[in-house]
């Protein structure tokens, strides 16, 4: 038997219960894994809280928890997803995202190399979005008590003066735009989970949108509402907008941007791309005569839109609370709020 002194952290390849127990090993995890990537003047203090001074204005505050499986998928991993998701939730409210917290629930035995990869992706995403992770927490749970790692991020942003985005602002004649192709994230995760491969790989669209949204709000004050169509996809988001505003929405099926590979995967799995999650897209409602301007700004952010930003429909006074799709054939169908879990059809 190879007898040794208690091994230093660097000897461990996996997360141990002791890493969450608040002692020496917890401190080492923080110092060796989190601080090298996240470090900033506030976090480095290792206090129980971050103390922030803000200039003025209204604060936007949001939280989101990420439990994706698989943790690593084409186009990203749970780490950049957790940062971008919270940044986008702030941005679509018209806020400038500033500070994030990060809470980790890690399953005992999770590989430290995997954790490091996730943390590095979070740091990159935060740098890209221009936000700092200023406070955090780690808990370790027993084997089988969580699926590898769960991450919660909360975020604070400042809403600029004069910005008032709300579903209640929707008016008849508003145009509805989407900033790029639909369903990429959900299908990237689903095909990774099912072990399906296609000629061209489907990559998640996970991306922080705050820079693009900031340009839009700066140049087009006639924007009335924004949402990021994450879980439940475009179908959920449009239904939420219609219900909250008491207006109707009409969408042109031919204008909906869906990549061929995503369409193909959806056909194969019996899933409607309009109900599939996006993690780097924004839906914008703007006064009709300003729609082209918003479209041009979206298109100028080529990295976020891949040339697929589109005006997809309009707000109407008819059929309040309901979203109608005009089909290529000239028929109409209701675009429903998805019921819940995506259940693939038999045939």
């Amino acid at each position, binding site marked *: 038997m190879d007898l040794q002194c208690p091994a230093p952290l660097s000897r461990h390849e996996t997360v141990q219960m002791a890493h969450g127990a608040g002692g020496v090993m917890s401190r080492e995890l923080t110092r060796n894994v989190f601080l090298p990537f996240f470090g900033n003047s506030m976090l480095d203090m290792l206090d129980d809280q971050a103390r922030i001074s803000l200039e003025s204005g209204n604060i936007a505050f949001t939280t989101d928890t990420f439990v994706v499986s698989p943790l690593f998928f084409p186009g990203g991993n749970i780490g950049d997803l957790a940062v971008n998701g919270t940044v986008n939730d702030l941005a679509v409210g018209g806020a400038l995202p500033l500070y994030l917290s990060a809470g980790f629930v890690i399953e005992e035995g999770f590989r430290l190399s995997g954790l490091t990869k996730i943390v590095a992706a979070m740091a990159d995403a935060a740098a890209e979005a221009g936000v700092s992770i200023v406070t955090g927490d780690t808990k370790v749970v027993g084997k089988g008590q969580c699926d590898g790692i769960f991450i919660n991020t909360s975020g604070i942003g400042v809403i600029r003066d004069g910005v008032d985005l709300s579903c209640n602002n929707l008016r008849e004649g508003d145009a509805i735009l989407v900033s790029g192709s639909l369903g990429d994230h959900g299908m990237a995760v689903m095909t990774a989970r*099912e072990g399906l491969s296609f000629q061209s790989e489907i990559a998640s669209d996970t991306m922080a949108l705050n820079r693009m949204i900031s340009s839009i709000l700066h140049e087009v004050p006639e924007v009335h509402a924004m949402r990021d169509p994450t879980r439940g996809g475009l179908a959920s988001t449009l239904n939420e907008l219609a219900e909250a505003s008491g207006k109707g929405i009409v969408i042109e099926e*031919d204008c909906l941007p869906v990549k*061929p590979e995503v*369409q*193909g995967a959806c*056909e194969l*799995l*019996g899933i409607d791309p309009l109900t599939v999650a996006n993690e780097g897209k924004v839906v914008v409602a703007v006064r009709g005569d300003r729609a082209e301007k918003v479209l041009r700004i979206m298109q100028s952010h080529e990295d976020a839109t891949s040339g697929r930003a589109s005006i997809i429909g309009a707000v109407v006074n008819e*059929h309040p*609370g*309901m979203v*109608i799709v005009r*089909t*290529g*054939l*000239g*028929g*109409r*169908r*209701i675009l*429903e709020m998805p*019921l819940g*879990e*995506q*259940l*693939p*059809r*038999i*045939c």
Partner: protein
Amino acid sequence: MKYIDEYRDPQRARRILAEIERRVTRPWTIMEICGGQTHSIIRNGIDQVLPDSVGLLHGPGCPVCVTPIEILDRALSIVSRPDVVLASFGDMLRVPGSEKDLLTARSEGADVRIVYSSLEAVRIARENPEKEVVFLAVGFETTAPGNAMAVLQAKREGLDNFSELVSQFMVPPAMQAILSSGDCAVDGFLAAGHVCTVTGYEDYEVLAEAFHVPIVPTGFEPVDILAGILRVVTMLESGVSGVENEYARVVDREGNHAARCAVEEVFEVADRQWRGIGTIPLSGLRLRNRFAPFDAEKRFDVASIQPEESSLCKSGDVLRGVVKPDECPAFDNGCTPVNPLGAPMVSGEGACAAYFKYQRKV
């Protein structure tokens, strides 16, 4: 995307639509058999753009809709036992049994897994020798070959922990039942394209001859469906019955020989109960006796579970095209997509769910 875009081309669809309008001189009622066709009709708004004189009736070809409540209750009973994995196609999970659905059972701790193919269930059995793995083998002639292959594969590998709870249906006996009923309103059929891919259409020639109806194997995209309707209308207008194939890119008269052989080897024809309709003689398949060890019904002794269906729900009449969904007393009155009484309210392909969506506010 090839084989998709050209069959969704609105220009092409409108040309066929104009041809239907030109040919039709009197009212006709056409039934599309397959739930996949119903789905496409609703999704593309085909029923709204057809001339008023061409009516569509939604047929009984939604496997989710016609699977009887007893199969759900038997599945729920089996999966409530320790060390059992129930593998199923996704959309069966929301179909209500007498007391709950499989999604609820899963949330209560039952090991219910969604698979895309019966062979995935065989893999689960191979990887979990300590578990009993039961595949919910539902569907029409389209799923039967795969489900037969799964049994053959399990037998070949000597897996003694794999079985199937079988509820396989066949289309022609259901069409015969519809045509034989006194209140049949159907003038012609769009036969289910993918069923015919497996079976061919010789059986349909017999039906078409006996009942003097046009039957047209038809695909699932808007251009396919409109072309199928045009073909049926043309046959009706010229008084022609018989089978004409409008899905020749995948269907031929003899079907898929290898698939039919696998089905023939594993299954035999049997009476089947259809949800809301009742038992139709010789309308389904069951495992042959020599595959009895793979028969979950025997293995878990659940054949005695025979619940009653809700008397309020008129889904049988809906499936036969006798009653419109909103004429059912339970429609939107205790039966909704969130809390369905009958299966046609469950699936996006189900006629009641389709009516619920459209008539709620439009």
